[in-house]
């Protein structure tokens, strides 16, 4: 379980390092390279929230 949480949490950080250096296509009015970066920041949030949900430590500290 702990291992899976590790993997889940690291995916977005690693993903953000794969820069796609191109302008076309525009997404939401932004050049692709910018959109791609923002997408990963948002995904970081999603993945960490999932990790947080799965993490047994979260329940333990309920006080």
């Amino acid at each position, binding site marked *: 379980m702990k291992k899976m949480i590790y993997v889940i949490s690291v995916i977005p950080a690693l993903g953000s*390092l794969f*820069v796609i250096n*191109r302008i076309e296509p525009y997404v939401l009015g932004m050049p692709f*390279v910018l959109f791609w*970066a923002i997408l*990963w*920041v948002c995904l970081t949030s999603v993945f*960490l929230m999932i990790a*947080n949900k799965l993490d047994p430590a979260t329940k333990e500290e309920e006080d």
Partner: protein
Amino acid sequence: MNAALLVISFFLVLCIWLGLQARKGKNMSLEQWAIGGRGFGSFLLFFLIAGEMFTTYTFLGASGGAYRSGMPPALYAFNCFYFVIAYWLLPPIWRYAKKNNVISQSDFYDKKYNSPALGILVAVISVISIIPYLIMQLKGLGIIVSEASYGSISPNVAIVVSVIAITIYVTASGMHGVAWTAVIKDIMILAVVVFMGIYFPLHYYGGLQPMFEAIDTAKQGLLLFPEQGMSISWFISATIMTALAFYMFPHMLAGVFSAKSPKSLRWNAGIMPIYQVIIIFSLFIGFSAILQVPNLQGAEADLALFKMAKMSFDPWFVGVIGASGAMAALIPSSLVLTATATILSKNVYKVWKPNTSDEQLRSLSRMLVPVISIVTLYFTFNGGESIFTLYLMAYSFMAQLFPALFFSLWKKNPVTVQGAFVGMIVGILLVIYSTTSGTTLATLFPSLPQAVQDLDVGLAVLLINIAVTLGVSAVTRKTSIHVEEDGEQVSGMGKLVK
């Protein structure tokens, strides 16, 4: 007195009032003053830690960077590693701190390695890094207020007045004052930056995509990473280096210690990225200025945001922008002041005079606030170029503290006190050497591929630091007393049982 000035003054007074108000009903022990008595829930913690991403950098630096060099510095503003590191590293740091009554960043090293001398070294490195950071915030503040007041207040007057303001409420309320003013600051900045980031592209270009297309036509290549210099490999290495250094700053760890539970720290790590996305509006402002106010040279590029604002809005709204910009500088500065005063009294003075009582330490920390303020003011006005050089080194300096902290969180710490000492000192010396001599991987190894040449030199130094730390530790391990590892091991075993 013009409208802008009135608005700025109002918010300054509001900050002082809130800051003083925050101490009501609190018995101001050192723990209360320095880290809010470890009592901040998710809400205050969020504004305290996440708010650190919205400094004068968000206002002037990010928009100025996008204006000057386009996409590379713009994307550098986003850093997913901050949060992943926060998720895993901060809870164990917090637990150890709580268990061992750690109240400052230097304390952590002191207690983990059972070496007050290491605490002093960390404190000295931190103060040398953090004062230039403070000075840059103040210089930014001077520019912001003087611009927003249409030049009716000189930067120096603005700096002196605001330093007096934060000195008053930090001395009185410490961390509590910082936290409550941080809430106001972030709400203001959010509103102002989001509004301008949407308004400028719409008003001047008819939308985001038309704006970017216009920039791409006028300035080819500005929206992409170049082949060399600020290339993709620079971006990756600089991103990692900055993230490792981010939480080593004494004021950041003070923020971490102020949390009520590790749970709120993990929750924060999950929610903060959404908040970071807001920086994009600051970038839009910078991008929108490229074709609207062209030809800002050098340092003037950082004024892109204000040039746009003055061109577009009434003075009173420029005042609101100025006030939020000023708070963007003030609140991080007040956090830095609190943390610096704490490490100087707890980790330097107390080691020198071990008999100091907690009560005396508390008064000393508070008395140190005005002293640090005055020293900072002195260097702000007389520091010159050397301050800027130090500022450039600040992140690389703080990154050198990472290995000793990281390994100390392992179940069995492979690092000895000697290893930690030598690693840090070697790292610091290499950073100083490479910065002052302009050495980069490109000048050292001109024959290596471009991707390697563009790597951030700070990251290379960090790798050397880790090698030295582990090497020296391996040699000294047999002769030194084993660094005990309590706390973490116990709680770790508890988890295994479950």
